[in-house]
């Protein structure tokens, strides 16, 4: 079995964030694996029109505010409304980052109706490297708040930091995570 389960975290009590920190609460996020996957299942926003995303702390900023690791990323999506209109694909400039330190979006303008959420997978390569930037690729699908669009997102980039990354935090850019589960795996 090369996909090794590490930990699940459920958004019990509508937390503002969900974090995975190496060495804490059975989390392994170091050089044990050369690749990590985070599987998101039905991440439901507590606030309408919010974005779900992640940021990290490097070993240069242990326990920090998830606001110092620069990310360069791209974001594109395909969408189609429940009404059958608006089928399109395109780049989304508001969700990319050029050496930015903000929450890296994996969705945006997420709908918060009771049956609507985000699901997907984030892969991070070699977070413990002290040589290279840290590449990541994410893809997901969710319900966009405008006219109930199915929105398929493709996000990728690198954390432009040569310090090892051993802490990651998931959050909405507004409001709490109302419910949902994140499963963390090591690949190797």
């Amino acid at each position, binding site marked *: *079995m090369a*996909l090794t389960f590490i930990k699940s975290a459920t958004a019990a009590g509508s937390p503002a964030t969900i974090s995975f920190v190496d060495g804490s609460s059975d989390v392994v996020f170091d050089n044990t694996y050369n690749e990590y996957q985070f599987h998101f299942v039905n991440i439901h926003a507590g606030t309408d029109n919010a974005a779900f995303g992640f940021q990290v702390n490097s070993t240069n900023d242990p326990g920090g505010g998830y606001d110092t690791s620069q990310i360069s990323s*791209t*974001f594109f999506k395909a969408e189609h409304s429940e009404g059958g209109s608006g089928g399109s694909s395109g780049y989304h400039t508001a969700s990319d980052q050029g*050496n930015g330190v903000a929450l890296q979006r994996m969705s945006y303008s997420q709908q918060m109706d009771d049956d609507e959420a985000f699901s997907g997978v984030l892969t991070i390569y070699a977070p413990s490297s002290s040589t290279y*930037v840290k*590449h990541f*690729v994410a893809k997901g699908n969710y319900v966009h708040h405008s006219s109930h669009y199915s929105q398929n997102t493709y996000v990728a*980039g690198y954390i432009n930091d040569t310090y090892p990354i051993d802490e990651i935090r998931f959050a909405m850019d507004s409001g709490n995570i109302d419910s949902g589960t994140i499963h963390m795996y090591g690949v190797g």
Partner: protein
Amino acid sequence: MALTLISTPLNITTSDTAVTSVDITSGIDGTYQSYEFHCVNMYPETNNVNFCFQVNAATGSNTAGFDQVITSSSARAYLKEDGTGGTLGYDANSDHHQEVSLQRILSTGTGDDADQSVSGILRLYAPSSTTYVKHFLAEGNGADHGDYTVNSWTAGYINTTEAIDEITFKFDSGDIEAGTIKMFGVS
């Protein structure tokens, strides 16, 4: 889905052990319906190069080398580190139409700065089929030589009905100075 680690054909960290290519000549057969090749921090000797693969049907009629006919498409999104130039588009330089040259995957124009590399996954479906062409999907991200992040999505098929049992990975110029490649079977 279960991933089974078959082998780690590359795991090098310094230029002292650089290789021109990584040729996998065993372990690709009918045991699994699909195979994944996880390539992590592939670091090039040469600036502005493209990470690629090709395949061989060693037991088929064309055993001359890694030169199978491929038809493929490729798209990419990129953005410069200064936040400019965010673009999504088709990459006509990375597609194939019945061509036998190296197939670019995962990113383009990878730089050779000390912290630059390319990472991603190539999925190859039913390579041992003697009925169908062999489909593949690749997704990855790289650090471009001009300080762009480049996310590439490439897919296509190896247009042969002979069983594919060998694969090579390399940059289209210069050596692989560092990186890890793991081969998994998917069941």
